[in-house]
C-alpha cells in the first residue's frame, strides 16, 4: 500500500511541479489569518494610547509598558519605582502552573508507563478511559470539582462520617484548589505524549542494562529517561503553557481573590479598567516569555540531536 502510494506520487511529480506554491497557499492563509494577523494586531495595540472606557486612540505611546514596569503611586505622580504588582502576578501564575505541571508529571509518568506496558487490547481500553472525562466541557468539569471539594461537599462529608477528621478540610478558595483544578484539567496532556514515547521504547535495552549489572535506578536514569525525555518535555510544555494563562480554575476554585495572568488580561478588556493597550502589552510580555522558553527547549533539542 505504502509502496503503491510512493510510486504514484513519484510518477505524478512532474504534473504537480508547478502547483507547489499554490498547494502551500491554504497553510499560509491559515497561519496568516489566525496567527500573524491577531498577534500583529495585539503588538500594535500595545503601543497605542488607551481611550477612556475601552478602545484605542491611534497615537504611539509606551504607557502600557510603563504601567507594567513602573509604580508611580496611587495618583500617578510619585517618583517612579519598580512595579512589583504585575511581576508578582506573573510569578504567582508561573508557580501555580509549575506545581500543577510537577504533579501531572508525578502521576502522569507512571500512568503512561502502565498503559504503554499493557498488551494490545487492554492498552486501547486504558487509553480510551483516560480520554472519557474530556468529552465533557472544561467549565462543567471545573464546577464539578468545586462541588466535590467544598466544605459541605461529598469529600469532606465522607471523611467526617468515617471519623478521619472532625472539621471539614478547607480546600475551596485556596491556592491548592487552583493547583488541583489545573492538574485535573491538563493531566491527559501529560499522559498522552509520555505514553507515545514509552510505547516506542525498546524494552530489550532494559534487559541489556540488567545483564550488564545496572541497578534499576541506574537503568531508569541512564537508559529510560533519556529515551522518553522528548515525551516528558512535550507533556510538560502542554500542561505548563495553558495553565499559565488559565482563568477558569482561579476564578471558580480560587475564588477570584487574586489575579492570575489570564484574569488580569481579561479585566483590561472586559472590566471597568477598559485598558486595551495594557491588556495587549501584558499578552505580548506573556507571549515573549513563552517564546523564550520554547526557543531554549528547541535549541537543547537540536544540540542533543547533534550529539
Amino acid at each position, binding site marked *: 500500500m505504502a509502496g503503491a502510494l510512493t510510486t504514484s506520487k513519484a510518477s505524478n511529480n512532474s504534473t504537480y511541479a508547478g502547483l507547489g506554491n499554490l498547494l502551500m497557499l491554504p497553510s499560509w492563509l491559515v497561519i496568516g489569518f489566525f496567527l500573524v494577523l491577531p498577534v500583529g494586531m495585539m503588538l500594535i495595540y500595545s503601543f497605542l494610547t488607551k481611550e*477612556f*472606557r*475601552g*478602545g484605542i486612540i491611534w497615537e504611539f505611546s509606551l504607557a502600557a509598558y510603563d504601567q507594567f514596569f513602573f509604580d508611580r503611586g*496611587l*495618583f*500617578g505622580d510619585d517618583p517612579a519605582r519598580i512595579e512589583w*504588582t*504585575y511581576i*508578582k*502576578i506573573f510569578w504567582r501564575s508561573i508557580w501555580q502552573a509549575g506545581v500543577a505541571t510537577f504533579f501531572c508529571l508525578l502521576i502522569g509518568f507512571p500512568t503512561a508507563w502502565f498503559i504503554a506496558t499493557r498488551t494490545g487490547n487492554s492498552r486501547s481500553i486504558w487509553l480510551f478511559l483516560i480520554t472519557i472525562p474530556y468529552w465533557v466541557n472544561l*467549565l462543567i468539569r471545573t464546577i464539578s470539582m468545586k462541588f466535590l471539594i*467544598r*466544605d*459541605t461537599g461529598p469529600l469532606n462529608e465522607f471523611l467526617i462520617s468515617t471519623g478521619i477528621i472532625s472539621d471539614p478540610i478547607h480546600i*475551596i*478558595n485556596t491556592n491548592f484548589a487552583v493547583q488541583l483544578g489545573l492538574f485535573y484539567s491538563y493531566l491527559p496532556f501529560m499522559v498522552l505524549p509520555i505514553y507515545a514515547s514509552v510505547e516506542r521504547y525498546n524494552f530489550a535495552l532494559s534487559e541489556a542494562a540488567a545483564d550488564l549489572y545496572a541497578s534499576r535506578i541506574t537503568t531508569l536514569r541512564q537508559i529510560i529517561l533519556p529515551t522518553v525525555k522528548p515525551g516528558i518535555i512535550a507533556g510538560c510544555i502542554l500542561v505548563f503553557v495553558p495553565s499559565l494563562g488559565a482563568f*477558569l480554575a482561579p*476564578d*471558580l476554585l480560587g*475564588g*477570584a*481573590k*487574586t*489575579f492570575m495572568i489570564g*484574569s*488580569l488580561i*481579561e*479585566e483590561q*478588556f*472586559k*472590566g*471597568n*479598567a*477598559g*485598558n486595551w493597550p495594557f491588556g495587549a502589552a501584558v499578552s505580548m510580555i506573556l507571549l515573549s516569555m513563552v517564546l523564550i522558553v520554547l526557543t531554549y527547549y528547541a535549541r537543547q533539542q537540536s544540540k542533543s540531536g547533534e550529539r
Partner: protein
Amino acid sequence: MNTFLKISVSALAMTLVTNAAQAEGKLSVYHWFEYIPQELLDKFAAEYNVEVTMDTFDSNESMLASLKAGKLGSYDVSVPGDYMVEIMASEGMLDTFEPSELSNFGNIMPQWVDVSFDKGRHSSIPYQWGTTSFSVNRDAYKGDINTTDILFNPPEELRGKINVLDSQGELLALASLHLGIPQCTADRGQLKALNALVQEAKPHWASFGSDVAKDVLVSGDAAVGMIWSGFSAKARSEGANIEYAFPKQGYVVWMDNMVLLKDAPNRDNALKFMNFLLEPENAAAVTNYAQYTAGVTGTEPFLSDDVKNSPESNPPASPVGSFVAACSQDVQKVYDTIWTNLKK
C-alpha cells in the same frame, strides 16, 4: 465564566425553519444572563411575527467592551444599568426616539421618566430596578445586620466566610457609603482611606464572584454574600436561611433600562419590543421571573404573592439607596489602581 453565552432561541428557531418566509422581520436583543423569561420572547415573536435572537452578557462593562469592539450595528436593543446609559449616551452609542412613538410610554411611573441618566427618556425605558447590598445567613449570625460593618469590619464569626460581588463600581460605592465619603471623590485623603479600607477588609473575604453570588449562599460556602436584591430572593426561595440587609450607612440602588442602540438594524421592531415591555402584564412577567421591581404602573394584578411581599423588594423608607456614579477619567484611573491593588 465570563464568556458571552450565545443563546439560540431554540423553540423559535424550530418554527423559523418552517416559517422563515413568513416572519415579518427580525429583532436582535443583547441582554443580561437569566433576566428575561423565554416565554415572553416567544409571546412577542408570535404576536408581532418577528424572529427574535438574543445574546447575553454578564456585566455592564463587558457589554460596553463588546459593542465597542465592533458589535454596534448588529443589535437593536440592550439593557444597561443607570450609569452605563449615561456612558453609552456620551459615547454616541444610543439612538433617540420621541415618547409619542411608544403608545405605552404613559405607563412609565412618573418618578422614572425624568431620570438623571436619560432626561425625559429619549433613548431608554425602565426595565427593572432593584438594590445591591448583602445577605447574611441567620444560622451563622444573629446580631444586627443593617450595617456595612458586616462587609468591611465583620464580626469574628463571619470572618473568612464572605463573598463579595466581582464588580468594581458597586463594591467601591458601598465602601464609600461605609466611610461616609462621596462616590468618585477626587479628594486624595478620601481616596487613600478608600484604598486602605478595602485592603484591610480583604483578608476577611473568602471569594469574589458575581454569577456565583446566589449559589454560595444556598450551598453554605459563604455566610455573607454581597448580592443584588432579586438574586437574594431567589437564594432564599432555594432554601438558604438568609436575610437581606438595608444598611443604615446606605446601599446601592440601580435601574436597568432597555435602550435603543445606534444603527439598530431593525429600529421599528425594537420600538415595538420596547412598547411591548411597557405593557403591565409583560413587565410583571419579567418581575415574576427576575424578582426585581418594574418601573411600570399597573403591574400589581399580575404579580405573584411571593414577589409582591418579598422583603428584598420592599426597602424601608429610610435610609434611601444611592445610584452608582460614573467617575471622571482621573478618578476612574485611581479606582482601577485600587482594584488592581486589591487583587494583586
